[in-house]
């Protein structure tokens, strides 16, 4: 049984992004940490064809009492982690409400097939308007500085934990990262994680 408190029952957390950005791994890290903290969780990821560059989400429902279905009710998200700006807005459109908190990586992933990307400032403005709090962290930029865009999701994980919006801590995340990233990989990933915590502190 979880000892930490939960702001709401169930508490709905959504990761929104584009296939290939690493939402499945990110949601598995968060889900595992929550289970280790004694919570009941349901984690639903988009799989299959949409993985190939399509719009993807991971839904995590967190409870102290029961196993819920995985997909969030319309208008009932509590926290949205947006790995991409228009995908954040897409998630807000369906699951947002006046209380939702968003953490956003502002780097666009352009749709293919000649579909134009909207004005980024307009997108950001809409995200801010539809969130009770919206924080932007330049995760992709930092990952590229580290030499590989693959670190984007671990940087965002650091930002999520640093934002203190879920009942998980850096301490609960460490053994999970250690298991997933053995040896040298752990050092670079912990750097990415710390970078994410630093970015959110200054966001």
């Amino acid at each position, binding site marked *: 049984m979880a000892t930490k408190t939960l702001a709401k029952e169930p508490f709905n957390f959504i990761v929104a992004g*584009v*296939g*290939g950005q690493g939402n499945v791994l990110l*949601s*598995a890290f968060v*889900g*595992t940490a929550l*289970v280790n903290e004694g919570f*009941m*969780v*349901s*984690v*639903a*990821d*988009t*799989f*299959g*064809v*949409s993985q*190939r*560059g*399509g719009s993807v989400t991971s839904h995590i429902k967190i409870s102290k009492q029961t*196993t819920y*279905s*995985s*997909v969030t*009710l*319309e*208008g*009932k998200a509590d926290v949205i982690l947006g790995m991409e700006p*228009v*995908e954040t*807005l*897409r998630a*807000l*459109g*369906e699951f*947002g*409400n*006046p209380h939702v908190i968003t953490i956003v990586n502002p*780097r666009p*992933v*352009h*749709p*293919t*097939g*000649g*579909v*134009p*990307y*909207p004005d980024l400032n*307009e*997108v950001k403005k809409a995200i801010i*308007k*539809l969130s009770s709090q919206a924080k932007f962290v330049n995760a992709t930029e930092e*990952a*590229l500085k580290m030499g590989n*865009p693959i670190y*984007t999701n671990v940087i965002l994980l650091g930002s999520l934990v640093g934002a203190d919006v879920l009942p998980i801590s850096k301490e609960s995340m460490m053994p999970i990262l250690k*298991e997933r990233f053995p040896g040298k990989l752990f050092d670079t990933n912990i750097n990415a994680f710390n970078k994410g915590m630093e970015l959110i502190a200054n966001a």
Partner: protein
Amino acid sequence: MASIAMDKPGATVLLMGNEAVARGAIEAGIGVAAAYPGSPTSEVLPTIASVAKEMNIHAEWSVNEKVAAEVAGAASFAGIRSLCIMKQNGANVAADFIVNANMTGIGEAGMVIFISDDPGGMTSNNEEDSRTITKWFDNPLLEASNAQEAKDMIQWAYEVSEAVNLMVFVRGVTRLSYTKGNVVLGELPEKREKKAHFPDLWDMYNPKKSKFTSGPFPVFHKPLHEKLEKAREIFETSTFNRYVGPEHPEVLIITCGACTSYSIEAVEELKAGDRVGVLRLGTTWPLPEKLVAKHLGTTKKVFFVEEMDPFVERSVMELAANLLPATCDLTFYGKRSGHLTPYNEQSTNLVINALMDILGITYQGRDVTYDREAKEAVTLVPSRPINMCAGCPHRATFWAIKRALKLDGRDGLVTGDIGCYSMAFAGPGFFQARTMHAMGSGAGVANGLGSLRQFGFDQPVLAVTGDSTFYHAVMPALVNGVYNNSNFILLILDNSATAMTGFQPHPGTGQLATGDPAPVVDMEAICRGMGAHVEVCDPFDLGETTETLLRMMKEDSGARVIIMRHMCQLVKVKRKIPSKYKMRVDPERCLGDTCGCDRLCTRIFGCPGLMWDTETGKAAIDEALCVGCGLCADICPADAIIREEVI
């Protein structure tokens, strides 16, 4: 988690539904697991294979679902518990074996088939409801609603299977297979020697004395129906069937599978727990009639909540007809009434909408002003068409196909198949595929088109298939083409993996499900042995590939084969094969919208690594996505995309 075979009974871990199925089978002491990769079930077999050695399990990727069912069936015949895993369509492939095995029974050791359907077609090109075919087979059927239950139900399914001497199906859906949830681990089986031996005595009523040949048929068919009645009796008292709600609900929901939680949450969200009860069936075929009849007697309104076909709905209405006149004042809601659809995925919101109508109440999910503003804001959000990955060899293949068919000029066409290259029906494959049906149907349909010469058919026909699909279902079609002298070219897109479902090995890869080495079953030698003329191309050499296609199309006779060989980009990443090139766009050479190419690179070629920079009005490389394959340098008419070799 560390290992699916962790010996920590009572520990709670986060498992995907598919992993929970694997754990359930391991706890049940299976000795054999066999499957063909098919999402949403693709992760079950690899999870078992990862501990196959330590748990003394034979885990194999079979060449198709029929062979997988036969491999698992044989294990049960010889006294070893077995698991067979397939997606919904797999049941069609395995059907012929299953209907016959139901006539003979499976012997002393249980056999379970885990099958997962795909409402919404998230990982499939159809929404087949496997429950209907399971009923047609005459197999007992269970439906799990979450990961914990999937584990527990798989274990119980072996008990049922052994009690009735039949294969038992456990049905999931994509949301069950791919949702991760808390699972409390049970005990691992005792490490004892599993001794396989084929029995030699025969008594059709006694599984200990089985002989696995059927006939005379009416004699064998009779015990099958008796076994189903026995399963029904077992199901009547199963704890997987549960009721939550008032003693006399105004509305009785009858539900199963993933819809169980949608129903319970909808009632909770509407605060209608005093008016609505939920009867959740874990055993859906044969229907536990006494249990259902008891609940029908408590209400006047019955609402069926299930995914795809009105399967439980039909069974219960049939029962209600049998119970007349006691049931004459019941009203039924579900698919027939139009409250839910027999297609697409269900959700808590859809159940809420239906209950609002049935109960005559209203519900507002979020603040009205916010709702209006949110709906207004999302008009900014563009569509995001699915695509082949950056660096995908299929993009190169279809680019060459498109060029070759245009140059050939006889309105040649592509018959498509199942895999990542299915996307060739749309933009990612330049709309080249003009048919797409079952595994292997591209080659089968090409056989038919290539046999229409006497009716004046003169279009070149190119059948595409993947490497894994080739072994699964294309080989018979190629034999057919050579034998009947059908006129088509089979293109085997050999990317060294079953890419669509997660890079599982297959007979051509030299690797087993466990990761151990295997003999390479040489597809080139197979095709030559069948009597087909075979050539091999690297699709990244666009010029030579186009020329080969043109030359082979001109031959215009018999079944011919081109193997398009280039490793899947994601496999390259997994094997840490570095990028060949660093790509850049030369802004001096890119003429933007004045070029006349109409943004060929981003709008048509469409690799995710390319983008159109609206500020400069020119093409650009997205360095976060480009993998440096270099192909786009060959398609730019202005030679503005530059590849620099990475040293």
